[in-house]
């Protein structure tokens, strides 16, 4: 299964605005994407509450997984989004 391991780049971690941007992007993707941190259960990347509940901070490593047509492209773009500092973007 296509997988990407990426380090969260946003200064405030994966919550508030960065989480919203990520979840909205995942919801628009043509394939179902999951996200997990450490050895915890993977959760849907389009679930705001699940993504927030990861409690991922800046520097936390998370793993994205997806299957099907366009999985690789989707994972690439979502991984790039996670690696950016989405808080800095705002300013």
């Amino acid at each position, binding site marked *: 299964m296509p997988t990407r391991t990426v380090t969260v780049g946003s200064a405030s971690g994966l919550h508030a605005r960065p989480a*919203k941007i990520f979840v909205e992007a995942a919801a628009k993707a043509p394939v179902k994407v999951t996200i997990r941190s450490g050895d915890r259960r993977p*959760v849907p990347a389009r*679930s705001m*509450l699940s993504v927030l*509940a990861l409690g991922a901070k800046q520097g936390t490593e998370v793993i994205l997984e997806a299957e099907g047509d366009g999985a690789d492209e989707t994972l690439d773009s979502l991984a790039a989004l996670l690696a950016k500092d989405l808080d800095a973007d705002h300013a």
Partner: protein
Amino acid sequence: MPDTVLTGIGVCPGVVAGPLLRIAAAPALPAPTTVTDVVAEAARAAAALAEVVAELERRADRAGDDTVAEVLRAEALMAGDEELRDGVRELIEAGHDAPHAIDGAFATFREAFEAAGGYLAERAADLDDLRDRAVAVLLGRPMPGVPSPGHRYVLAARDLAPADTADLDPNQVIALVTETGGPTSHTAILARALGLPAVVACPGVLAVPDGTTVLVDGATGRVATGVGDAEAEAAIEASARLTAAASALTGPGRTSDGYAVKLLANVGSAKDVAAADEAHAEGIGLFRTELLFLDRAREPGHGEQVAAYRDVFRAMAGRRVVIRTLDAGADKPLPFLNQEGEPNPALGVRGLRVARQRPEVLTTQLAAIAEARAETGADVWVMAPMVSTVAEASAFVAAAREAGLPRAGVMIEVPAAALRAADLLRVVDFLSIGTNDLSQYTFAADRMCGALADLLDPWQPALLQLVGLCGEAGRAAGKPVGVCGEAAADPRLAPVLAGLGVTSLSMSPRALPAVRAALSSRTAEDCRRLAALAVAAAGPAEARGSAG
């Protein structure tokens, strides 16, 4: 509900009438019910969550501020979460009803948020809010928070926090009335920013049923129910006329025949001085010093106090500034005084009484005031709050003189002090009547007790009689007697107070123009006649009526 007149503190002038709607409280979870149709129950839960999402998105669309809109949209994403919906459906399939399934599904995420700690743990309250909204929809109740009925209304609340009002729609909300809060509360700041008539510290407002038409006067702090259309229109017009007339008037306060009543402003810090100047205040009649002491684990030092006092004195150079020493205790406990555990704080060690246990707090403050006075040209008068006896007044005056302060007075807030006004004036230079506390102690009615609001009406003849005792003593002694409670901000009461012998009125700067106009429309003889009628009246309504 019978027609009532509630009185609070007017913090933003203007008169409006409209239906009162309160910020809805969070609903309690109903008793569990047995679910017979699982599919229908799941659909009911999904519809409730969808309504919460729709409402949050509507508010986001309407929000003027991008940050606010973003926060609301993030909340909509949470309420519309598919994992949440799945969790709710599973719980309903397991036999729970919709409200309990929603509560249970949110609780799972709440635990995860709390386990993550930090920022996320603080967001747990957002989940509770979303749950409360969904449960309210299921119960057919308004969602918690600021109503958005689609028509103009008067918003009532215990108090307003910035979060409540971030997306408040000024096209719907025409006035604000809160049960607690003060002239510096968020409500007051918001009202001034939006130009909405507002009344804070208005006990009893939450007992008014939703939808009741109320007449709100943001200058006098009056909130009346049972008002007819004609009466409301007349009040709104009168207010507009008064505003127009008042803004044309400047200069010192006086009756139409030239009897002077000084018009002064109440301030909490140098920040408020600009508003006092705009209103052409003749000086400061009450400089509250509590602001500097609030939320402090330790007493502010001499240097810090000097700086804060100097800022106000300098801005008022050449004019009178009546500064009140620390009024701690009761509703304003201060951490460094360790006042926890008093069984009845309003009757406890507050105001000047603190000096019995901690005399150095007073001497430090008086020394700082004296130093700030020496550096500026202001005419500084110092006064003590919560004085009951001549002995207390004498001790305070001695401490003020010792610090080098030439003018020392006391506040009249306790009936014992009002009854002995003449004796007090033998030792002090002036009196200042705090009508809010004097009402509370005269009528044995807690200022925060909404059910007793009628007893705290500043038109109560017994209160006016005590004011009259002070005024008479002042005339006899040739010494000033001021009023610095909210009663001073009521334009209709101003001539009555002047007639009772009050020589200065100190109020929130915004109320000043209307009071100036009211005084200028009466002769001194009128004022004395109205005062006699008000004191002789059977009750506050009759007293108001006699003042025509």
